[in-house]
Structure formats: structure tokens, C-alpha cells
């Protein structure tokens, strides 16, 4: 039977297991929306801005591990998606973005609402396609999903002209696709793995350094098994939080610019660094020349370009992190001493780390007169479900969440790590809640980031998404203010947001519940009430205005040059 392009697209999505899409209609996707009107197998959520739609698809993908799907119309609709696409690209999130395009005959003619979205998104997508013929559509969709979810995942854009949506052809969805130039290396090289395990077992002061790749590769359980088997402590990047339980005694927590003292000291003193699915971001390494100066480095990554990009690597292993970790564990069992012996051999190193932990724990100065943001984060952890999903925006609250929430489960922290996108949190939480309607989902925002996409309150309310919104309000663009305080002589240029916004009324205006805490003793009460109240709730906490995120490694300094909290 012949189907039109719009219907074919929806059939393709269905066959890829897509159950939820986030999209915004417009002239060039009106045919697609017309088909969607009677296509009940896919839930469509209408955001209030295309950027938020893409962030929502991103949050859905980060939380569920499935490919997120977003739709936008041509021209301004498509260009509005860029920040969302770039965010997903930097964090390797699997997504397919479908944009409408003017009819093929008009492409390149400066038609109404025309933008060269293929050209615009080339540097921030893993790949993109312009569908010129309806006969190619099904194969292109198959390729798009395959590329998005395999290898190092990423966003793939499909630009779909209006006439292709109308044109008809026989629908056949291919079982598989062959792409000559795309053959990701999935299996780690056995010889390299054996060499790595031997090297690791000879080390006296090893540290495992984990990035988002372990979460994306669904390899958290394998990571924990290997770390425990070998008795090696684990530090994670922001994107890696949740891959190793932070309540484990061998957890070093976050490292880098706002990492723990003990993680940064451990990395600076280790003789072996095992980097897994991490890319040595400058926020992690500090000054490259003094990063892990005594260490041999083993680097496991599915993306060969990540290896040796920023730091020297003694032993690279290209492959899917789960495959490599499983094989490493097997090799360790074959050639190494047992777990007890491994742990005993590393006892002096663990003792050294424990001393750092005791000397400079992750802490802050508690106050009774004013709410400390770190305290709110700790109370959120204490009063929320163990598997609660936390989205964040970008800035101080993001770092406090990373430092003090104590993540124990993968895919429970959704945060824009690579691009650092303000406005990401609220729509990402919305996407996660759409993916997991029965789980507790909250977003921790600053007052600044919240205002970047607060229109999504409307989407949340309309779709009855049970998102709990936490605003740590210090009336500042806090992180920039912190830098101005530390490095620009307190010249707070344009970082003060003094406008007295009534966030409670705002929430109510959108049909959500608004709660506020201004005193320390109100914090628990508001959180408990917020979580107990059905539907979307906005909880505003008026927090200490000039609180800083500490410890901190100033940009460009070595990890050992930390400004400490005490």
C-alpha cells in the first residue's frame, strides 16, 4: 500500500519504538501534524518553544536511555532548535530531530521560512540528512536512528521538505542498514585489555576516572564490579555522577574545578589513571601540564578522537565501555590475585586517601539566619525517593547539586555538562517525567536559568507532568557573580537580578502550585509539602546571596591549587 511521506515518517518512528515526541507545528510540517492527529500510538507533547522541545527530548533520552525525538518547522522553528542540538551533541545524547523544510523546488530560493538547517547544524550534529525523495525516507530514518544510538551516540537531524511529506510511495522499513563509512569499533582489543589489566594490577596508587560514557553505555554495574574486584577508588566527572554510588567508601565523588579535595589530590598523586568514557574536559583537568603528573594513563572510549586529544595516553582501548569492562573483569580473574589480595595491596593508598577525606571533607558553613543552598540540596536528597531523577540548570546550583546530592544510580542526574546550557533544566525534567510518569522528577534551578525557559511551566501543567521545580533564588547569576567576586574585585557587572519576581504567583498563573521558604526551619516543610502535593509544584528557596561554590580550582590552575571551603 502506498503511503505519503508524513505517514511513512510516523510509521518509521513507531518501528523504532518511539512512544513520545516533542514537537512544535508550523507551515512546513502541517502535513506531518495532520497525520499525527489520527496516529494515536505516539504521544505528542507541545512545548512552548522549540529549544525546550529539543531539551525535553534530550532529558527523555538521558533518563530512559532511548532515542529522544523532536520536531520543528522550517526556518525559525529549525533555528530555535540549535542550542538544544548543540547541548545534546556535546554530551553525546542519542536524538533524532526532524525539521520541516520548504518544498524541494523552493530550496535555495530564500523562500518564506527557509533556512539552510543542514548547513547550520553540520558542526553540532553527529550527522544530518536532507530527504529529497520520498523513496529514500524510510532508509534515511533507519540510518538516522542507527547513527544516533550506536558508537558514540549523538543527535541526528532529518530535514524533510513539505512536498516529500505529501508525495506517496510504497512503505518498506529496512531491517538493517549498511553505511560504508560508519563502522564504530565496539569490541575492545583483547591484547590491549590484557596489557591494561596487567599494568593496573602492578600499580600502587591507581584511580578510576569515569565520565558520562559509562552511563551512556549502560555500564555502571560493570564499572562497580571491576572497581570492587580490584579495590580501586573511583572519581567521576559531572556527566559520570551516578555511575558509581557516592555512598560507597571507595567513591571519591566529583573531580576537577569544583570537585572534592580528595578526588583532586588522589588524581594528582596517583601512579595509574584509568579513564573510562571520559574526555578530559578542561573543567576536569585544570592545567594540563600538571594533571596526573605521576600517572600512567589507560583510556577506554568508544570514540577514538577522544583519546589523546587533550592528554598523553599510555594505553588506549577503543571500544564500547561495557564490552571492555566485562573483558577486563574476566582478564583480572584469569591472571590476577583475588579480590582480597588486590584490596590488601592497595590498603596504604586507600589509607592515604582516607586521610585527605578526613582533612578536607566536602563541606560548607551551616547558618541559622539564612538558608544555605547546599543545605537545601542535602535535604532534597534526604526527603526524596532513592531513584528520584534530578535535572539541573547551569551554574552554582548545578555544582552544589553535583557536590551535595550524593548520586547513587545512573541516569538520575540530567545536566548540561559539555555545553553548559542555561535553560536546560526545566524542559529536561519535563522530558524525563514524560518518560517516567511514575518516578519522582525534580529540577534544581537558579533564578537566572529558570527564567530562560520558564514558559515551559505551561507545557508541564497542560500535560499534567508531575515535575517538582526547585529554585535556589539568590537574585544573582551566581556563578558569574562568584567569578566577579574572586577575580574581578567584586565588580558585579550585570549579574544582579534584583527584580522582585513573585515566583509563587507565577506558578499559580500557569496553574501550578507555588511554595516558598525564606527561613532555615521552613526548608523541610516546603520540600515535604512539595513532594506530597500532586502535580507540578514550584518550590522557591531564598538562599544566601553571596554563597560560593567551594572548593574551587581557579581556571587554568593545577588541581592541587584548590581554594577550600574552610
Amino acid at each position, binding site marked *: 500500500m502506498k503511503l505519503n511521506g508524513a505517514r511513512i515518517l510516523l510509521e518509521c518512528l513507531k518501528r523504532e519504538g518511539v512512544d513520545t515526541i516533542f514537537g512544535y507545528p508550523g507551515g512546513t510540517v502541517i502535513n506531518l501534524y495532520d497525520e499525527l492527529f489520527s496516529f494515536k500510538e505516539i504521544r505528542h507533547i507541545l512545548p512552548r518553544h522549540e529549544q525546550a522541545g529539543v531539551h525535553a527530548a534530550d532529558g527523555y533520552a538521558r533518563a530512559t536511555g532511548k532515542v529522544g525525538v523532536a520536531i520543528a518547522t522550517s526556518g525559525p522553528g529549525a533555528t530555535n532548535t540549535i542550542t538544544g542540538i548543540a547541548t545534546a551533541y556535546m554530551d553525546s545524547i542519542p536524538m533524532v530531530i526532524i525539521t520541516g523544510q520548504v518544498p524541494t523546488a523552493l530550496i535555495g530560493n530564500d523562500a518564506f521560512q527557509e533556512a539552510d538547517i*543542514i*548547513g547550520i547544524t*553540520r*558542526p553540532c550534529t*553527529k*550527522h544530518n540528512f*536532507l530527504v529529497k525523495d520520498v523513496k529514500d525516507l524510510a532508509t534515511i530514518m533507519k540510518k538516522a536512528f542507527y*547513527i544516533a544510538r550506536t558508537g558514540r551516540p549523538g543527535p541526528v537531524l532529518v530535514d524533510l521538505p513539505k512536498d516529500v511529506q505529501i508525495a506517496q510511495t510504497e512503505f518498506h522499513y529496512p531491517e538493517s542498514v549498511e*553505511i*560504508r*563509512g*560508519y563502522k564504530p569499533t565496539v569490541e575492545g582489543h583483547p591484547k590491549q585489555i590484557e596489557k591494561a589489566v596487567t599494568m593496573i594490577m602492578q600499580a600502587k596508587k591507581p584511580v578510576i576516572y569515569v565520565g558520562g560514557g559509562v552511563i551512556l553505555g549502560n555500564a555502571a554495574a560493570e564499572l562497580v564490579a571491576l572497581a570492587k574486584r580490584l579495590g580501586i577508588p573511583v572519581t567521576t566527572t559531572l556527566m559520570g555522577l551516578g555511575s558509581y554510588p557516592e555512598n560507597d567508601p571507595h567513591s571519591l565523588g566529583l573531580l576537577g574545578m569544583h570537585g572534592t579535595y580528595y578526588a583532586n589530590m588522589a588524581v594528582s598523586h596517583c601512579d595509574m589513571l584509568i579513564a573510562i568514557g571520559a574526555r578530559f574536559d578542561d573543567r576536569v583537568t585544570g592545567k594540563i601540564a600538571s594533571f596526573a603528573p605521576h600517572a600512567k594513563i589507560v583510556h577506554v572510549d568508544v*570514540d*577514538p*578522537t577522544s583519546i*589523546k*586529544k587533550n592528554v598523553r595516553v599510555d594505553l588506549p582501548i577503543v571500544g564500547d565501555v561495557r564490552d571492555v569492562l566485562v573483558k577486563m573483569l574476566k582478564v583480572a580473574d584469569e591472571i590476577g590475585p583475588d579480590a582480597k589480595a588486590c584490596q590488601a595491596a592497595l590498603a596504604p593508598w586507600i589509607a592515604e586517601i582516607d586521610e585527605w577525606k578526613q582533612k578536607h571533607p566536602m563541606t560548607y558553613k551551616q547558618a541559622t539566619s539564612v538558608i544555605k543552598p547546599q543545605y537545601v540540596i542535602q535535604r532534597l536528597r534526604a526527603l526524596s525517593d532513592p531513584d528520584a531523577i534530578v535535572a539541573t540548570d547551569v551554574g552554582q546550583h548545578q555544582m552544589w547539586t553535583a557536590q551535595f546530592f550524593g548520586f547513587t544510580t545512573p541516569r538520575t542526574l540530567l545536566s548540561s555538562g559539555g555545553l553548559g546550557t542555561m535553560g536546560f533544566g526545566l524542559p529536561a525534567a519535563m522530558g524525563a517525567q514524560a518518560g517516567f510518569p511514575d518516578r519522582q522528577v525534580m529540577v534544581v534551578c537558579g533564578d537566572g536559568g529558570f527564567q530562560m525557559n520558564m514558559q515551559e511551566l505551561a507545557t508541564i501543567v497542560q500535560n499534567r507532568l508531575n515535575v517538582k521545580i526547585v529554585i535556589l533564588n539568590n537574585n544573582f547569576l551566581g556563578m558569574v557573580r562568584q567569578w566577579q567576586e574572586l577575580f574581578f574585585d567584586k565588580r558585579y557587572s550585570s549579574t544582579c537580578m534584583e527584580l522582585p519576581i513573585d515566583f509563587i504567583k507565577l506558578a499559580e498563573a500557569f496553574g501550578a502550585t507555588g511554595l516558598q521558604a525564606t527561613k532555615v526551619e521552613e526548608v523541610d516543610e516546603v520540600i515535604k509539602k512539595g513532594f506530597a502535593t500532586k502535580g507540578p509544584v514550584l518550590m522557591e528557596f531564598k538562599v544566601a546571596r553571596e554563597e560560593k561554590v567551594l572548593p574551587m580550582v581557579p581556571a587554568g590552575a593545577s588541581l592541587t591549587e584548590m581554594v577550600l571551603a574552610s
Partner: protein
Amino acid sequence: MRHTIAVLVENEFGVLSRVVGLFSGRGFNIDSLTVAPTNDEALSRITLVTRGDEQIIEQITKQLNKLIDVIKVIDFEPEHAIEREMVLVKVSAEEQSRAEVLRIADIFRAKVIDVTPKSYTLEATGAPAKVSAMVELLRPLGLKELVSTGPVVIGRGAKAWKG
């Protein structure tokens, strides 16, 4: 270090801009670039010359390999490759220099492809060093216009590289 890199790509629209965008986006420079179809009409071959230390060249080749439309990348070692470029050069040919232009053309086995009372236009092919040696000898005689293809490269020996 100068490197000549050959990239075998799908013969589709937009591929060249992906390759070039990769260079511009990362601040790498391209000295020259040649693109044309191959014996397999589904494929095109890009030959580009770039510069960088070992680490930069490694990143360039890895990043090129990462592009979905790129099928193969080879960073040619000069001793294992044959490099050729073609140059068309228009030289003033006044009374006193006409014979000299022809002599130089003859030495470098260049062909005269256009003649006027005031100029010769020469076509020369060869290794980039040879071509540039000829151009340097012609320059003092009055170089009016020069256009070059930039080098293309093929590996030495019987082994072919078809993708």
C-alpha cells in the same frame, strides 16, 4: 610538518563542506584541496595538504574518519607516494624574453597552450617542487597569472586503494 592526506568520501552533496567545516571549526588550516570523482562513481576522492605537528595530524585524521560519509583516510608518507599537480601560467613574452620563456618551458616539459604577441600561457604538471621551481624561474620574466590544481596523490607500488 606538511602532510598530504587523501580522503575517500561518498559522492553526495554537502560532503565537501563537512570535511572543510571540520578544519575551520577546529582552527586547522588547509593549504590546498582537490576533489574529483573516482573510478567508482559513488565515491569522490579529496586530496588535501595541511600542516601540523604529530598530535594535530592525528586529530585531523581521526576526526575525518569519524565523519559518516568518509570511507577512508590516508596520511601519505612522502616516500611511499607520488604527488602531482598541474599549473597553468600566463607569462609576459616581450621581444627580449620570448626565447627564455620557451627555454624554461622546454626544461620543465611544459606545454605552450596559448600564444599572443605579448604572452605565452604554459601548462605544466609534476611534483609540487618541480612546478614551483619552474614558476620561480618564470616569475622575474613577468608572471601575469597563475592557477594551480594543488596536488593529487597516489600510493607507490601495485597495491591500489579503492575503498
